[in-house]
C-alpha cells in the first residue's frame, strides 16, 4: 500500500463533499470581515483610550480579532472531515480499502492539514492587510518587529485548531458529540477560565489561549504569561499531538 495512493484518495474525498467548501469559506469570510470591523471600531475610539491602553495598542493582534469566531468554522471543518466517515458508515468501506489504520489516519489528517494550512495562511495575510487598512494611521506594517511572525502564526493557529478538532473527532466519532464539546469549550469555557482571575493561570495553558499568543506583537503591560509566542504555539501543538495520538490509539484498537 503506497501511502501516496491513500493521500490521493483522501484528496478526492475532501474535495468532493460540499462541507469542505462551506466550512472553509465561512472561516475565511468571518475571520476577515470581523477583523476589519473590529479594526475600524478600534481606530475610531483610539483617542478615547488612556495612556496605558495606548501603549498596549497592538494593531496586528486587533486585526486578528475575527479569529475567535472564524476558528469555530475551522473546528466544524476539522470535525466533519473525520466524523463524516463515521456518521455515514463510509469508515467501513474506507478501512476495507486501506486496512493499515495508521496510513489511513495519517493520510487523512495530512491532506486536511495541508488544505487548512494553505487556506489559513492566505486568510491570515488578507486579514492582516485589510485590518491594517481599516486602522489607518495606527496601523502596523509587515516589516515591523514580530509582525511577520504574528501573521504567519495566525495561519498556523487556524491549522492547529482544525487539527485538534480532527483528533478529538477521531476519538469521539460522533459529529454532534464532537461539536457539542469543542464549540462551547473554545467559545465560552476557555474565555471564562482565561478571564476569571482564580483560573487564569490554568486557562492560559489551554490550546487556544496558548496558541493565540503567536499573533500578539505588543505584550500588554503587566502581562506575566510564562511563555513567549513560539512557546505558546508549542503548548498548542502538544495539545494537538495528544488529541491525535489519542485518536490513533482508539482507532487502532476499536472495531470499525
Amino acid at each position: 500500500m503506497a501511502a501516496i495512493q491513500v493521500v490521493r484518495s483522501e484528496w478526492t474525498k475532501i474535495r468532493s463533499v460540499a462541507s469542505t467548501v462551506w466550512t472553509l469559506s465561512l472561516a475565511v469570510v468571518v475571520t476577515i470581515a470581523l477583523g476589519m470591523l473590529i479594526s475600524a471600531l478600534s481606530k475610531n475610539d483610539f483617542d478615547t483610550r488612556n495612556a496605558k491602553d495606548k501603549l498596549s495598542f497592538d494593531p496586528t493582534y486587533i486585526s486578528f480579532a475575527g479569529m475567535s469566531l472564524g476558528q469555530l468554522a475551522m473546528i466544524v471543518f476539522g470535525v466533519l472531515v473525520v466524523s463524516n466517515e463515521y456518521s455515514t458508515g463510509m469508515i467501513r468501506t474506507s478501512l476495507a480499502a486501506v486496512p493499515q489504520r495508521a496510513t489511513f489516519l495519517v493520510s487523512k489528517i495530512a491532506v486536511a492539514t495541508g488544505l487548512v494550512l494553505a487556506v489559513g495562511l492566505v486568510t491570515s495575510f488578507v486579514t492582516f492587510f485589510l485590518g491594517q487598512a481599516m486602522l489607518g494611521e495606527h496601523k502596523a506594517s509587515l516589516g515591523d518587529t514580530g509582525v511577520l511572525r504574528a501573521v504567519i502564526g495566525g495561519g498556523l493557529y487556524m491549522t492547529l485548531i482544525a487539527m485538534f478538532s480532527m483528533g478529538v473527532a477521531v476519538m469521539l466519532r460522533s459529529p454532534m458529540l464532537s461539536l457539542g464539546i469543542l464549540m462551547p469549550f473554545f467559545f465560552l469555557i476557555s474565555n471564562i477560565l482565561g478571564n476569571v482571575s482564580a483560573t487564569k493561570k490554568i486557562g492560559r495553558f489551554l490550546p487556544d489561549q496558548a496558541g493565540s499568543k503567536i499573533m500578539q506583537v505588543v505584550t500588554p503591560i503587566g502581562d506575566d504569561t510564562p511563555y513567549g509566542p513560539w512557546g505558546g504555539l508549542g503548548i498548542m501543538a502538544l495539545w494537538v499531538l495528544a488529541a491525535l495520538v489519542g485518536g490513533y490509539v482508539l482507532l487502532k484498537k476499536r472495531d470499525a
Partner: protein
Amino acid sequence: MIELEGLTKRYGEKTAVNNLTFAVRPGIVTGFLGPNGAGKSTTMRMMLGLDRPTAGDVRIDGKHYDQLKDPLTYIGALLDAKAMHGGRSAHNHLLCLAQSNGIPKKRVREVLDTVGLTAVAKKKAKGFSLGMGQRLGIAGALLGDPRILMFDEPVNGLDPEGIHWIRNLMKTLAAQGRTVFVSSHLMSEMALTADHLVVIGQGRLLADTSMADFIAQNSRSYVRVRSPQRERLLDVLHGAGVTVVETGNGSLEIDGSKSEYIGELAAQYQIALHELSPQQASLEEAFMQLTAGSVEYHAHSDAPAEQQPWGDGWKGN
C-alpha cells in the same frame, strides 16, 4: 479462498461468533445462511479486518487481510449499501476507492456501466434509492476486479428485476472461477443461487455442505395416510416391508414409497383411507428446523402473559 479457523468474537458476556471453522472455495457460490442475529455480519466484518476476532483467525489466500497489498484487488465486499458518504457523487465515491488501491480511473466508468449507474454517475449518492445504493456498493466490490467477492444480504431492498440481476451476476462471477460468498437469512434465495451452504446459528456452525446434499438430506418427501382402520393398515404396511412413522395426531407418514403404491395396497386389502397425500418438506422448513434451537429473536405466537401488579416480581426479594 477464504479460510476461517476457530473464529470467535465475544462482546463482553455475549458470544456473537463461536469457534467457526470453514473454508470458502473458488469457482462456486457459497451461501452463508443464518437467522437474524446469528453472527453473519460480524463474521464478514472480521474477514475484512474491520472487527478484531477475540480468538481464531481468518486468512485470505493464506494471508491476513491487512497483509494484502491493495486489498480491493483481492477481495471486494458489499457489507452495507449505506456505507458511503451521501454527499459524494457515485463517480467520486468509486474514484476515491480506486485511488487508494492504485486501480486505474477507467475502471470506475467500467463498473458504473456494469451495474447500470452510468446515467447517475455525477449524482449525489444520498438521492439514490436503496436498490441504486446497493448497485453502487456492488460496483465498489467489483472495482478491483478481485478474485474473491463477498456480499452481505445483497438482495435486500432490490426489486424483482434487481434480484434477478444480482443472482445472475453472482453465478457469472463464480463461473469465471472467482470465490463468491453471499449471506442471506432466506433459504429460498440461497436455493436459487448457492452451490454450497454454510449455516450458522447463534454464532455456531450448524452445517457446511453442498447445496445438493442439503436438499437430498433435508427435502424429505413422504406420503401421509389416515385411515379408520389404522391397526390393520399398519399390519399390511409392515407386511409389505414399508417403513411407517406414526405421528401423534393419528396419521401415518411413509418414507420412500409412492402414494400410488400405498393406495393400491390399501385397495387390495379393502382398507378405507381418509387421506392419502404426497408431502414435501420445503427447504425453508428444513432450515428452520436446523436453526430452531438457535434463533436469537423469537416471535411468540401467544399473547404476552398478563402483568400481575403484585406478581412474582415482588416475591422472594
